[in-house]
């Protein structure tokens, strides 16, 4: 009898707690209108894509198809901190959405081929969470079921200190605002130094100070090109524009870098016969702070101009 009453009390408590948890989670879902990771776009990936791009934040912020989207079906598959190996996984999942002859821009940034294995990176688990929103479990590295449940169905359990503010004040998307910023309003040299630290130093060097070549990422690029060909798409490798402060930071601190980068990229281009368009120091952009949001990312207007230029130049090449 006593045990029965005890179990009933515990069951009642657990039931109310579960009910409140579900209620608060539903409330949170209704109030959170943000898309900080830019993953909402994957809820509705169009069919018959004719132009698309992959890449990290360099791909995410450098492609703006607004001038051509009336004429073509376009899609930006890039996400912040996305590696080539994740580009490959996304392409594998969405390859049926690409129309035959689809133009696939694959950004290769200076950091793309270097560094320790992605799963060994300190920030890996936190940056890996964005893929639980849309990739199938088999495509997610180090897949974890509980993370999947929390991320996709119970985001309120993952909100921590932001929970009360989102519940009571809501949360709007700040992506457009962020993308529309201008580098004119910031100390670009300081930002370039930070970007250099992130792209060339942190987790990129071995204990003796030599650059680590990441074989998984190099191989992923080769596989992407092969997969594009297999499905009848046209891969084009691109390096997006950077501000001169960022380029100066590289030439001052890593003068031999160009050589190392080319030593990896050239054999891939030769073996696969893929086009490579390097806009890293393109004069249309390198001195135009008004077209950048920081040292190495274009802003919305810069991305529009770059995308138009890229498509125009690619058309000229084809002619």
């Amino acid at each position, binding site marked *: 009898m006593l045990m029965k009453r005890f179990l009933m009390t515990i069951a009642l*408590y657990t039931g109310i707690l579960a009910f409140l948890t579900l209620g608060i989670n539903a409330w949170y879902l209704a109030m959170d209108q943000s898309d900080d990771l830019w993953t909402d776009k994957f809820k509705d990936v169009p069919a018959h894509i004719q132009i698309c791009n992959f890449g990290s934040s360099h791909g995410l912020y450098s492609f703006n198809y607004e001038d051509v989207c009336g004429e073509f079906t376009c899609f930006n598959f890039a996400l912040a901190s996305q590696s080539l190996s994740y580009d490959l996984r996304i392409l594998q999942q969405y390859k049926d959405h690409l129309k035959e002859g689809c133009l696939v821009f694959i950004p290769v940034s200076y950091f793309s081929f270097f560094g320790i294995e992605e799963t060994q990176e300190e920030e890996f688990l936190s940056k890996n969470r964005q893929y639980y929103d849309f990739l199938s479990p088999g495509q997610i590295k180090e897949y974890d079921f509980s993370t999947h449940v929390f991320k996709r169905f119970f985001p309120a359990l993952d909100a921590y200190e932001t929970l009360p503010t989102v519940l009571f004040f809501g949360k709007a998307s700040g992506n457009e605002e962020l993308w529309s910023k201008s580098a004119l309003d910031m100390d670009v040299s300081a930002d370039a130094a930070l970007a250099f630290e992130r792209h060339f130093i942190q987790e990129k060097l071995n204990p003796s100070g030599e650059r680590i070549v990441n074989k998984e990422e190099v191989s992923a690029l080769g596989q992407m090109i092969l997969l594009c060909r297999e499905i009848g798409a046209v891969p084009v490798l691109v390096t997006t524009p950077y501000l001169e402060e960022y380029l100066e930071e590289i030439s001052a601190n890593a003068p031999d870098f160009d050589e190392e980068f080319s030593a990896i990229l050239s054999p891939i281009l030769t073996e696969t016969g893929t086009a490579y368009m390097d806009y890293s120091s393109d004069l249309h952009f390198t001195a135009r702070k008004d077209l950048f949001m920081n040292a190495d990312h274009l802003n919305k207007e810069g991305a529009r101009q770059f995308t138009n230029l890229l498509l125009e130049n690619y058309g000229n090449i084809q002619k």
Partner: protein
Amino acid sequence: MLFFPLIFTVYWTIPHRYRWFLLLLSSYYFYMSWNPKYIVLILFTTAVSYTSALFLDWEAHEGRRRFILFLTLAVCLGVLFFYKYFNFFSLSFSSLASFFLPVHPVLLQLVLPVGISFYTFQTLSYVIDVYQGRIKAERHFGIYAAFIAFFPQLVAGPIERTQNLLPQIKNPHSFNRQKGIYGAKIMLWGYFKKMVIADLLADFVDGAFANVYGYSGFAWILVMFFFSLQIYCDFSGYSDIAIGTAKLLDIDLMTNFKSPYFSSSVKEFWSRWHISLSTWFRDYVYIPLGGNRCSKARQRFNLLATFLVSGLWHGANWTFVIWGGIHGIAQILENLFSQPLSWLRRRTWGKVLCGLSVCLFCGFAWIFFRAPAFSDVLYILTHSFDGFGHPLSYLMQGFAALGLYPLKILYLFGLIMILAMYDFLHKDRDILLEIPKKKKGLVWSLYLMLGLLVVFFSQKGVAAAFVYFQF
């Protein structure tokens, strides 16, 4: 996840005469799920202490009894020494010897068995109590083995006394609803402390100690404040979960923490912090050394020696010994200045001042406890006030270095305030017993709020081990 509900169900279903067997089996399974081969060590220590206690009961000759006692202590402490301290003493000896001749230390590649310090001390107190005639030796090997390996407290205490726990494992129980509810409540509070506060603070503390020279100024003051709370919430959280789990089986374990940061002296702090260990050292080290019944100088020596050993118990490193020594010296100084201090404590402001001093002192001592090496301690002590000349930027840079922005600071200190409020109210009474006397709706609301805090704010996706498992 299913382990305890299963044990709970079977425990209350089977007749009492088989329950010791269930407890033994589940305790060994629990331990073996960490590292199966080290179960041999528990079995060995249990067999040795069980047998020697029987001999001590049976043997009347004092000389032979003393020999059995020393032999047992040597064997049990020998196992602990071999696994926990061999490398430490080998390194220390070779460092000392290297002043005279080059010596290469002999080092063993051993994994420290989880909870070895806890169950070794439990067996030692049993054997000493039997030797001193305080208890009779247990005849039933299975019940004795279940007492040593009782799973809720096996790996991180409380270090139970034979008189308290052994009879409870032996005697019949019937389910007590009030005790069960109390157990569930104390477990919930333990989960809050461990999964919400300790795991959150661990992120800042571990990050800073992984890169000691990367931080300076107010960041270190914050880190040490966070560590003081992390270790308290981690360890007392575990104790609460252990106590609550045992209560659901109608077994009472001793209280291990009682609002230690609300102490007004270091002596009081030790009567509220890890009580099962501090009373163990009092009864089996301090008093046998002579305790208070000797000259003042000898008393001070006894106190210092006890705390040095206590430091060594926590870890095989000189930083732990120094940590213990600092606490010992602080208590000697408190004794020396007992008159002005007791005058101070009689006044409210004086009591608050003493309380703050104790917190600051403990925070300072924790640096020795947490820092991996003495050089790190020196760095932290000499760089904690870098930039103090510009107070505002000193504070701002400290928060920024740890990635603490205003909302996160508010969140963190909000959670800490809940802890502080509970501990303040819990200081001189059991708040969990007081709450049910209030209106039912209020009681339910309070526990549902606590449950929601655990559900929403516990750190997910981290597998943070309990800090004290390593001891």
